[in-house]
């Protein structure tokens, strides 16, 4: 019993790191411009398919493939920002919600036309790892490692580069940043690009675990909402912690009740945290 609990929890936590990266993209965009990116799910799916295509058709190692996928994610984000988001950045929330949802429809629509909705998978196995009584696929371990690496890179970027500092300045107070001569439009575009880049990378990592379709991003988008709220909307590191919590919950709950109750608990908790502590479980009151 205890063995099973620990192995299920480990599994969940490893997955949680990757959830965290997906959510980090969403929370970064929210933190900088107060936009909830409803195109987040399709971008995750794009990351899955990008990795898949590079691997299946060009034989690129899936982990290496994530480098160009990240680049493409960044560019896609810049394009989405310029076309769909920039004009509604100061409009009521409904506008940016629907604008990004329109992008969601466009990506899903084109994706369905090109790839149909049949499941694909990346046929690349790293075997499995045994630690004591625990056995899990090595890809999970690499995935978690990748997630930590991405998080570390994001933090180094935000704290030690000019562009990163500008992002933090704009997130803190856009008007003040503008008065100090920071070109806020460019910073917003870059932040949006970074956010979608994280989503694309997360998609790539998830694609090494599970089969996926064009529509697979949707559930991860919803999970990202939950994670962002648990960790406090707008805090990238909070997203990683929130990801671990969600992964942990997903690992733990099935040992106590049927798996189908997992989303009830997840979304129940989500609404509760929003109501009681909208700044997140760890955020300042």
């Amino acid at each position, binding site marked *: 019993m205890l063995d099973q609990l620990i192995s299920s929890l480990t599994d969940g936590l490893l997955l949680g790191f990757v959830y965290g990266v997906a959510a980090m993209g969403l929370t970064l965009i929210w933190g900088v411009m107060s936009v909830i990116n409803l195109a987040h799910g399709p971008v995750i799916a794009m990351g899955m398919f990008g990795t898949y295509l590079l691997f299946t058709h060009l034989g690129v190692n899936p982990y290496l493939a994530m480098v160009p996928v990240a680049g493409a994610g960044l560019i896609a984000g810049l394009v989405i920002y310029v076309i769909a988001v920039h004009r*509604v950045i100061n409009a009521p929330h409904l506008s940016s919600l629907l604008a990004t949802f329109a992008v969601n429809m466009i990506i899903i*629509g084109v994706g369905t036309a090109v790839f149909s909705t049949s499941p694909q998978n990346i046929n690349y196995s790293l075997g499995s790892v045994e630690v004591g009584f625990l056995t899990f696929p090595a890809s999970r371990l690499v995935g978690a490692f990748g997630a930590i690496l991405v998080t570390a890179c994001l933090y180094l970027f935000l704290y030690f580069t000019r562009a990163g500092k500008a992002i933090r300045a704009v997130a803190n107070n856009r008007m003040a940043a503008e008065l100090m001569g920071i070109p806020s439009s460019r910073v917003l575009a870059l932040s949006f690009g970074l956010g979608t880049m994280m989503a694309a990378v997360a998609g790539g990592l998830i694609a090494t675990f599970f089969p996926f379709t064009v529509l697979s991003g949707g559930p991860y988008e919803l999970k990202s*909402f939950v994670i962002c709220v648990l960790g406090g909307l707008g805090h990238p590191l909070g997203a990683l912690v929130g990801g671990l919590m969600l992964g942990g919950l997903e690992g733990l709950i099935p040992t106590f009740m049927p798996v189908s109750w997992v989303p009830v608990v997840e979304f129940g908790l989500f609404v509760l945290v929003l109501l009681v502590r909208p700044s997140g479980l760890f955020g300042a009151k």
Partner: protein
Amino acid sequence: MKVWQKPGFWLPLVIVLVWGGAVLLIHQDTMRESAFVLLMAVGLASSLNILLGYTGYVSFGHIVFFGLGGYTGFYLLSEQGWPLFASAIGGGLLSAFIAGLVGLAVLRLRGAYFALATIGINEAARAFVSNFEPYGGATGMFVNFSAYQKYGGPGPALWTTFTFLWITTMVVLVASYLVKHSRFGLGLLAIREDEDAAMVMGVKAPKAKTITYVISAFFPGVIGTLYFFKNGNIEPGDAFQLHMSIEMLVMVMLGGMGTVMGPLVGAVGYQWLRGYLLTSPIFKDLHLAVAGAMLLVIILFVPAGLVGWVRNHVQRLQKVLE
């Protein structure tokens, strides 16, 4: 002037009255089916607009009331043998009750936080109903055939259902107009424009918002019952589709939020466009992408929606297009 002397009150009502009446007279099954889908869209979009358009609160998961009400109505009808009318009202009342229960809490959240919470509520409800055995769990429920017998078999039952939907849609439009043009509605519009300023002027925002949430949740519950009875079965995947929720928002936005006419125009326009794209040989595969592109254009360039745009540009139509 009294309400019944105002053209803005009659216009949407007469459109739906004549349209549904014509369908009933012509009595053709395919025509009824397409009118059902359209009227349902009008009803749902108008209900959402009562909250979204008048208070400015973006209920992203509004479909939860369609799902919960639909489930409850379906259960009353099929498992408890209630008549259709009573079941539909029962479904509506349950939705209204749930809205009242959660409303006071979630309506404290503003802007995107509220939108996110409503998504969470919808997902939680879906997951819960998938586990709720009286409602058939993940497989849902099929209609008990004896329920049709009360209305003279499946064929006539569908006509009865259509008639109920037709009436419900008109009631929603009347409610929408009356709310907007009442003292209560003026308070809502004030909340939409600036909630804090409204409260300083004496508008009891928490209460007013909750009442509005309850009203806008009631009708989707009624419509849900009718829809799933027509379909003959109900399952969690169909009842709580976030996608449908967003379609409702799109319809309101397309027609013009905060107007009575807007959701009617938006719902019909959206469904017509969808139908056209789905059947057109050029756009068939890309219908979703094309619809997305059009939505984007509307949001970026015509944020007031079609009715809003006309109202802003043609002074004389302002009294007619409410």
